[in-house]
């Protein structure tokens, strides 16, 4: 147990700053009165910026962090993004909340500190502690300023907390086998424990459960759509869209690559790839029929996890890199999308696609940012989402065309690939619905004369949209080379030169614009032509009616109906089982004295017979 002991003096200064400073600051906010609002805001920004700088320095310099902490290729870039998204959330929520911010900032600081701690540690026990605290912080954040989300937050807490229990089991199994909590020691002793493969597999499954509950993949994803309609937008953008994705996929990658060293031929690899493909298609089909923008976005937060699982599951270097890159890209555009939805909601007080429309003129910056993020998430070149999806596909295609794999394995890879490819077309379709429902199309009563959102709400959104373009154009020369993978992996399988293609597309577009200008065509503003009909609010086409014919097509309709009755929700199913058992027990405890007396009598009789014998 020696390596668990934490000697205060041995903690590295970097750990003090990145992990403990935010936690302590957050604690101070909770203790002191809330009237010093301005000072709290200032302190929060100073703390986050300071931590962010420190994270970047740790990433660049790779210092020795003491015996229980470690920085390597896998957690370095995750660390930077934790700080970045905390900063963005802090800036955005300045104008979003009308209530006092100090409590929210305290939670954000807690989340930042604890996730830094979780990511940096190489000790299983510390990981477990961090994981548990993050579950509580998530619960608190969901409940902040949204009293209606009480039941949803309970569901979240049960799912995430239940997954923590699995993590405990997994760690306990590993400890009983290796007598160590250190990642490196565990992984080196596991290779000599081939005869315990059954136990090791159970432990690995426990880790997967914890990771996918956090990241939100099928079947443990149900808490994300559940919390989305009621909780605050900064919370949605901060936890399920960015931090939880980073941490969940980080844990999964750490387990697969470092600790358990899964072979691509193994059943786990195949199962993860299939689970990923299924997550993509199931979540995206649900997203397609949503009427509420928040719920639609939350289903996409689930479906994108599928691509990461596919990439990691393929266990090919390109696929793994693609999966990790997709994790970063997903946090960027998903946060951008949630925050843009927040801008719209702040101005119109609704996220219902039926009630919105025609906002592109009034909120041009939000519209542009959301359009870029939508194209990114749908994998339209040359944005960042395409780059990482392209890498994930390559990882799968390499496995698919590898004749040393069995027919069945190649079939599974093929199915996952088709699910992923079709998933991105469906993603495009559902975001076109959002674009039409919110920004394009006809104006509704709610949306005429709306102003662009506040500066502090627009700047984060625009910044993230720019990041989408930068990551798409300089994916290899910057992100892969310096952020994710300082040791270069051979990426020679496919071919994609985003910068040249971007220049050519701009060139071609300019040619077209020049042709347009040369034609000297007169521009005239006219009324819409709809064959003499009057354009009123009644004939306004609703975005929510787009996919009715898909919904009513064949077997899909009954699947949708079942999904809406929550038959596929593992939480609801378990709930029903538990309540079924409770109902039986209720018959026994009906509070009527004679019944209890009868039970006592029966018990005494049984005891009697036992003793007499």
């Amino acid at each position, binding site marked *: 147990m020696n390596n668990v002991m934490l000697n205060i003096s041995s903690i590295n200064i970097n750990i003090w700053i990145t992990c403990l400073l935010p936690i302590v600051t957050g604690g101070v906010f909770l203790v002191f009165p809330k009237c010093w609002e301005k000072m709290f805001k200032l302190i929060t920004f100073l703390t986050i910026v300071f931590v962010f700088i420190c994270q970047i320095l740790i990433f660049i310099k790779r210092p020795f962090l003491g015996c229980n902490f470690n920085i390597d290729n896998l957690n370095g870039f995750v660390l930077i993004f934790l700080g970045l998204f905390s900063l963005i959330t802090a800036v955005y929520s300045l104008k979003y909340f009308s209530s006092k911010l100090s409590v929210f900032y305290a939670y954000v600081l807690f989340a930042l500190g604890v996730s830094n701690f979780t990511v940096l540690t190489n000790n299983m026990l510390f990981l477990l502690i961090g994981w548990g605290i993050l579950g509580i912080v998530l619960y608190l954040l969901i409940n902040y300023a949204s009293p209606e989300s009480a039941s949803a937050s309970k569901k979240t807490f049960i799912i995430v907390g239940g997954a923590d229990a699995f993590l405990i089991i997994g760690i306990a199994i590993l400890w009983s086998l290796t007598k160590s909590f250190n990642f490196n020691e565990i992984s080196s002793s596991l290779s000599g424990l081939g005869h315990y493969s059954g136990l090791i597999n159970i432990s690995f499954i426990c880790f997967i459960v914890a990771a996918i509950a956090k990241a939100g993949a099928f079947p443990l994803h149900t808490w994300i759509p559940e919390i989305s309609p009621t909780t605050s937008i900064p919370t949605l953008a901060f936890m399920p869209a960015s931090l939880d994705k980073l941490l969940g996929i980080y844990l999964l990658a750490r387990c697969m690559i470092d600790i358990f060293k899964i072979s691509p031929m193994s059943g786990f690899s195949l199962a993860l790839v299939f689970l990923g493909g299924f997550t993509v298609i199931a979540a995206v089909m649900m997203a397609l029929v949503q009427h509420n923008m928040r719920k639609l976005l939350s289903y996409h937060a689930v479906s994108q996890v599928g691509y990461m699982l596919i990439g990691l599951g393929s266990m090919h270097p390109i696929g793994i890199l693609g999966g990790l890159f997709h994790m970063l890209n997903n946090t960027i555009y998903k946060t951008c999308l949630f925050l843009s939805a927040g801008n719209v909601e702040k101005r119109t007080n609704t996220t219902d696609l039926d009630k919105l429309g025609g906002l592109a003129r009034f909120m041009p910056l939000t519209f542009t940012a959301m359009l870029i993020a939508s194209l990114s998430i749908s994998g339209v070149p040359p944005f960042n989402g395409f780059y990482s999806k392209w890498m994930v596909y390559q990882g799968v295609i390499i496995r698919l065309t590898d004749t040393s794999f069995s027919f069945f394995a190649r*079939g599974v890879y093929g199915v996952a690939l*088709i699910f992923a490819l079709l998933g991105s077309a*469906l993603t495009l379709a559902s975001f076109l619905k959002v674009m039409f429902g919110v920004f394009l199309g006809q104006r509704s009563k709610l949306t005429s004369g709306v102003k662009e959102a506040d500066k502090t709400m627009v700047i984060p959104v625009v910044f993230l949209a720019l990041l989408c373009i930068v990551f798409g154009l300089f994916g290899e020369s910057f992100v892969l080379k310096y952020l994710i993978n300082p040791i270069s992996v051979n990426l020679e399988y496919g071919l994609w030169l985003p910068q040249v293609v971007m220049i050519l597309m701009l060139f071609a577009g300019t040619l077209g614009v020049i042709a347009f200008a040369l034609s000297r065509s007169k521009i005239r503003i006219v009324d819409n*032509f709809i064959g003499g009909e009057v354009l009123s609010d009644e004939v306004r086409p609703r975005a929510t009616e787009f996919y009715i014919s898909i919904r009513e097509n064949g077997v899909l309709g009954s699947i949708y109906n079942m999904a809406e009755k929550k038959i596929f929700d593992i939480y609801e199913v378990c709930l029903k089982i538990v309540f079924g058992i409770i109902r039986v027990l209720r018959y026994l405890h009906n509070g009527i004295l004679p019944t209890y007396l009868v039970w006592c009598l029966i018990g005494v009789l049984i005891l009697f017979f036992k003793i007499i014998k």
Partner: protein
Amino acid sequence: MNFYFFRDFFFSCVWEVFYPLDRKVTARIQYRVGPPWYQSFADLLKLFGKETLIPKNSSVTMFMLAPFLGMSALLVSGFILYKINLFNMPGFLGDLIVMVYLFTIPSLSLILGGFASSNPLSSLGSSREIKLLLGYELPFMLAILVPVIQTGSIRFSEIIQFQIEHGAVLYSISGSLAFIAVLLSVQAKMGLVPFDVAEAETEILSGPLTEYSGPLLGIFKLNKMLMFSILPLFVLSCFWGGFGNVNPLINILKFLTIVVIFTLIRNTNPRLRVDQALRFFWFKLSVISSIAVILALGGM
């Protein structure tokens, strides 16, 4: 990247227009003489001389930019195919996956343009286009997997090289099944009859294009023309060995055969409803392509 690069790009733009052939063949089928070969270009030129009408309630920037978005993506994808097929480049700008994704941008531009014009009929047409996209994308992607599985690569140059050495993908059972699927889904990608539900002039004026006029409409028409020569070249490269034959005449003949097949399908079928099209793609054509993929995995 230098002057020659842009010169080649320019040539590829000019080379890509095979649209007149479509009108000639159509006329022949209908026992007509047909217009002179330059008629389509004359129509285009005329559109550039007309004035541009912009609907009052539209999202102007998106409305104006949409046609150029589709055009730029098409020109770049045409450039890639042109370089690889005519210049035997070992690899150029992008691979098969890039191409599949670039081909969604023209549809995207049509959809966004229709949405931005804030006309109920345009929106209806755009929503039909999305549904059609969802329909044909599944069999299309499945069918494209067949050459990938057979050749073991996603680079065009290697796919073509493999076909030169081992015979075209089309000549295997799986390849020919996938070829049928890809032809029909590309037909829908180009928005030709029987899959022209999005524009359906007799039902919803002309769908997303209703509010477009003048040069902007011209660009959309140009996109149609470009698609009509780029997509056959894509099918040729994936399934029939590209321009890999030593005899250029045979190459051109192959290309023209594919173009004529599209025209024949267009002229001999009535328009489907969008739900019929969806059912056709999902429950019929996808089955064929899935069988093709399974056969390809089995090495047939």
